[in-house]
């Protein structure tokens, strides 16, 4: 069953087109990875889908409901979409646990005890329980990203958006985060992930979307897209990305 569908999605910044008519479907329980050269519009696509950047034209359906028409409850929509940022965006003045409970208390209006119990449970799931009282500045990059993932997951979103979750991590920490995301993949969490990281793409995706110049060039399972795609542009791209690993 489709969770998110977008039809002919266009986004322009000051008249400059970044997305030129994207058609995509994300089904429940599915994990889609979006790849493509820098500046191809990957991150903009994610931000359009949860209306952080409102699209210029086109339709986005969330559970069949058009969320681009006026009068949509943007906040309710965003509560169903967990968002993980490249640079973690953890609240630096709060501990790991408080980072998780703030949304539960202020957005989901949970009591502080219930929020705490929920946070502890989620933190255990990704092995961050022992770090719950640390502040972001006291964590390694991998721990920060795990904390950010927990913060998003604790809100019980229908889908998790990941924007370059491993790009600002060194290889070792990156593996640590990939294994957490892989676990979510195996748990059937619906995910939309933008990345440069072929390793991540391979281990967590049902299919990979290749985006170039603001348009979808190809969509296929990772293996086929990476190793023997007829389009030379795509072969060229993945040759570079995979060789670098």
């Amino acid at each position, binding site marked *: 069953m489709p969770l998110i569908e977008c039809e002919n999605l266009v986004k322009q910044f000051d008249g400059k087109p970044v997305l030129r008519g994207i058609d995509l479907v994300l089904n429940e329980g599915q994990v889609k990875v979006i790849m493509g050269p820098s500046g191809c519009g990957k991150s903009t696509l994610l931000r359009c889908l*949860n209306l*952080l950047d409102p699209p210029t034209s086109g339709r986005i359906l969330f559970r069949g409901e058009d969320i681009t028409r006026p009068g949509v409850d943007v*906040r*309710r929509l*965003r*509560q169903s*979409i*967990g*968002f993980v*940022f490249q*640079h973690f*965006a*953890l*609240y*630096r*003045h709060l501990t790991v646990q408080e980072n998780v409970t*703030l*949304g539960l208390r*202020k*957005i989901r209006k949970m009591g502080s005890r219930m929020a705490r119990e929920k946070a502890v449970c989620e933190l255990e799931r990704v092995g961050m329980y022992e770090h719950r009282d640390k*502040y*972001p*500045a*006291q964590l390694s990059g991998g721990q920060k990203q795990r904390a950010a993932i927990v*913060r*998003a997951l604790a*809100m019980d979103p229908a889908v998790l958006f990941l924007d370059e979750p491993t790009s600002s991590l060194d290889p070792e920490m990156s593996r640590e985060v990939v294994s957490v995301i892989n676990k979510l993949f195996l748990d059937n969490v619906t995910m939309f992930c933008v990345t440069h990281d072929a390793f991540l793409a391979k281990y967590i995706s049902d299919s990979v979307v290749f985006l170039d110049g603001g348009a979808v060039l190809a969509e296929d399972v990772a293996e086929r897209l990476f190793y023997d795609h007829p389009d030379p542009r795509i072969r060229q791209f993945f040759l570079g990305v995979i060789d670098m690993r």
Partner: protein
Amino acid sequence: MSFWDILAVLAAGAGITLLLSVACMAAALAVGLAVALLSRSRWAPVQRLLVGFTFVFRGIPVLVLLFLVFFGLPGLGLRVPPFLSLVLTLGLVSGAYLAEIFRGAMNAVNREEVLAAEAAGMTRAQGFTYILLPQMFRFSIPGMINEFTAILKYTPFAYTVGIPEIMKRAMSLTPVILRGLEVYLAVGIVYYLIYKACVVIFSALEKRFRIPGLSAQER
């Protein structure tokens, strides 16, 4: 009259000095916050107004503004009591300085954290209250300590409008005992003790609520 007696007389005025300082700090905080918040507005007339406000109240001498309020406004039919005059004056002047401190601190807050709060479904007001404001305050602490002690050091102007604080007591003591050197040395000591106490208390509070990665030194 021994030096200790002089100190005792002056110390009796210290309560009023402290009360004045706290009232002025509260006023300055309110003005500074209001100006800093308003300056987030992108509306050009508001921006220009605030630039003007900051220039005027950072540029005018405190004593001149105090006299304008206390001795000048009655000429327009507006009588402002002494205590309020000083609170108004220092509230505006220090508020203008604090606004600059708050503005700088707000720019030090990572925009992406506020964005993350909104992406999770918080309203703009919630993102502001729970993310931006608490971090801004932490970055502002050194500047706030500076500004608050500046307020303390401006309070002796209160004697010019007849408030019986430390300096006023010293001035009425001098012609009686004719030992200005000792009296004003004692005034200096009393102020210095209050200043030191303020700095110690503020620093202890800062340390108590310090968060790794968020103190102004690490900015």
